[in-house]
């Protein structure tokens, strides 16, 4: 038991540590990057990793290390932005439907069932396909598709929280609904929401990379991980380093998010066992 508590903390620490590292890399990119990420140098195309270009160069002779560093700004920041936007939309709806229930709840649940009945990548692609490729359209599409899952999660949390005895006693002691939501329900549902957000940030990074890879998201020449892979398609057979490093960056980011989620699952398991 003691061992698994230690282990769960370790994966949480590792996850948060990796995320901080990536954030720092993005923040310090202008100072860390050895070259300009957009500087084209056709005389040095597809150069393998070397001292002056640690990750090598791409098909236009741009420094891959610099592009990966600057890429964390677009990928991580936009993923975070998407998750925050989705929360801003779904938190009021989730609170409302979980706490108030009734007809409004019914309406939203039907809408959510409808949205979740379609594979999210299909719906995202349909929306991007209609609006046209681009970073802004991709952001919009992902938010439009993902809110439903968030609302369903928040709703179930709020529902469970509002059926507890302490909410009952809070109501009996004369608190109004707004106060109950703010003082008693929100703090209770917030920690699992944070973990859900962390896990989902990883999923959003994967989705964004996939869409950009298909040419539907971020457009070249922006240094973004998915775009870098998109650009490398024609060249990776002769220069595998053009795909290895952007892919590793995506993987590191997503596994950091996964580690945080895993740690939460474990601690929940432990807490459950302790009560039982």
């Amino acid at each position, binding site marked *: 038991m003691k061992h698994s508590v230690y282990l769960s903390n370790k994966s949480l620490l590792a996850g948060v540590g990796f995320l901080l590292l990536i954030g720092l890399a993005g923040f310090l990119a202008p100072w860390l990057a050895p070259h300009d990420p957009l500087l084209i140098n056709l005389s040095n195309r597809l150069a393998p990793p070397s001292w002056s270009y640690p990750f090598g160069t791409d098909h236009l002779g741009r420094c891959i290390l610099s592009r990966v560093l600057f890429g964390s700004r677009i990928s991580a920041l936009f993923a975070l932005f998407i998750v925050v936007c989705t929360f801003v939309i779904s938190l009021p709806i989730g609170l409302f439907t979980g706490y108030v229930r009734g007809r409004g709840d019914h309406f939203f649940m039907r809408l959510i069932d409808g949205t979740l009945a379609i594979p999210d990548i299909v719906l995202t692609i349909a929306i991007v396909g209609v609006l046209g490729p681009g970073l802004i359209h991709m952001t919009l599409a992902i938010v439009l598709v993902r809110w439903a899952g968030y609302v369903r999660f928040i709703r179930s949390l709020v529902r469970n929280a509002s059926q507890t005895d302490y909410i009952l006693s809070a109501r009996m002691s004369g608190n109004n609904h707004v106060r109950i939501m703010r003082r008693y329900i929100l703090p209770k549902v917030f920690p699992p929401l944070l973990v859900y957000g962390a896990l989902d940030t*990883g999923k959003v990074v994967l989705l964004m990379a996939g869409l950009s890879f298909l040419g539907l998201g971020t457009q070249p020449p922006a240094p973004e991980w998915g775009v870098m892979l998109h650009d490398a398609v024609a060249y990776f057979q002769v220069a595998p380093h053009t795909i290895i490093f952007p*892919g590793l960056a995506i993987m590191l980011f997503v596994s950091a998010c996964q580690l945080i989620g895993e740690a939460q699952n474990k601690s929940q398991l432990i807490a459950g066992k302790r009560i039982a």
Partner: protein
Amino acid sequence: MKNIVRFGFERVVQLMLVVFFVSSLTFWLLRLAPGDPAYLLLSAHNIPVSNEALTNLREELGLTDSLASQYVNWLQDAFTWQWGTSYVSREPVINELLHRLPATLELAGAGLLVMVLVTFLMGMATAFYSSGWLNKIGRGAALLGSSIPSFWLGFLLIYLCSVQLGWLPSMGRGTLAHLVLPALTLGLGLGSVYARVLRSNLLEAMDQPFVQAAKARGLSKRRILLFHILKHAFLPVVTMIGTSFAFMIGGSMIIESIFSWPGLGKYIIEAINKRDYPVIQGYVVLTSFLFVLIHIVVDILYRLVDPRMRVQ
């Protein structure tokens, strides 16, 4: 039996609702979209865009009707599987889509097979030796499997197996060898994640009284695992397999693009790049339909397989 009939009826209603929802959504999305379909259609065929040609075409496409009547027409068409003709090929959309569906189903089926194999072999092995290095590998593989971008895995496999070793073809469809790499790409990641789920189900089942009863009867550990515990732990996995099959059909566009697999996914990406709106519309309705259909079949299977569901 009566239960199943009622259940089936409810599900058919649900299926209709989803088709209605999705077709409404795509209709309104397309009406909000920038760009005039008539203009796009003309430029797609390199016809000089004149005002006269535009008005004629708008008339022909029914774009001059009121939005409400366009909407009703579209809903009728959606439910009768008439999704118009592709702007690019001038063929009926439904033919274009159904023509490519078998390739996608083949790929999803093969990916599912890989996934199930990995889930079972790894899940059972890591449950049997629940502590030790094998389990650590399983845990690491699950973390990798859930965080590796599928297209990146595809590239690595192509580089290793096709470019370096020259064992397998990396492009197109045809022989069984063509299927190996895309199926691995599709199935490995999900399989390693589900192996963890199967493992924890198995470990949980090992504590149940019926396992102790089997032990008391003197059955061997292997026999108990294979015939008693596995049957019990398998049920939740059935649902996951169904969900993944649907997911693989929907998510195949990336894999199909990498491996030039001539299926629905590759086609839809081309359609998006050419602004072939009727194809996009038809694709979304068709995949959602398939998606819900698979879920219904899985639910029914689940009811048939699990004796506990029949009692209720």
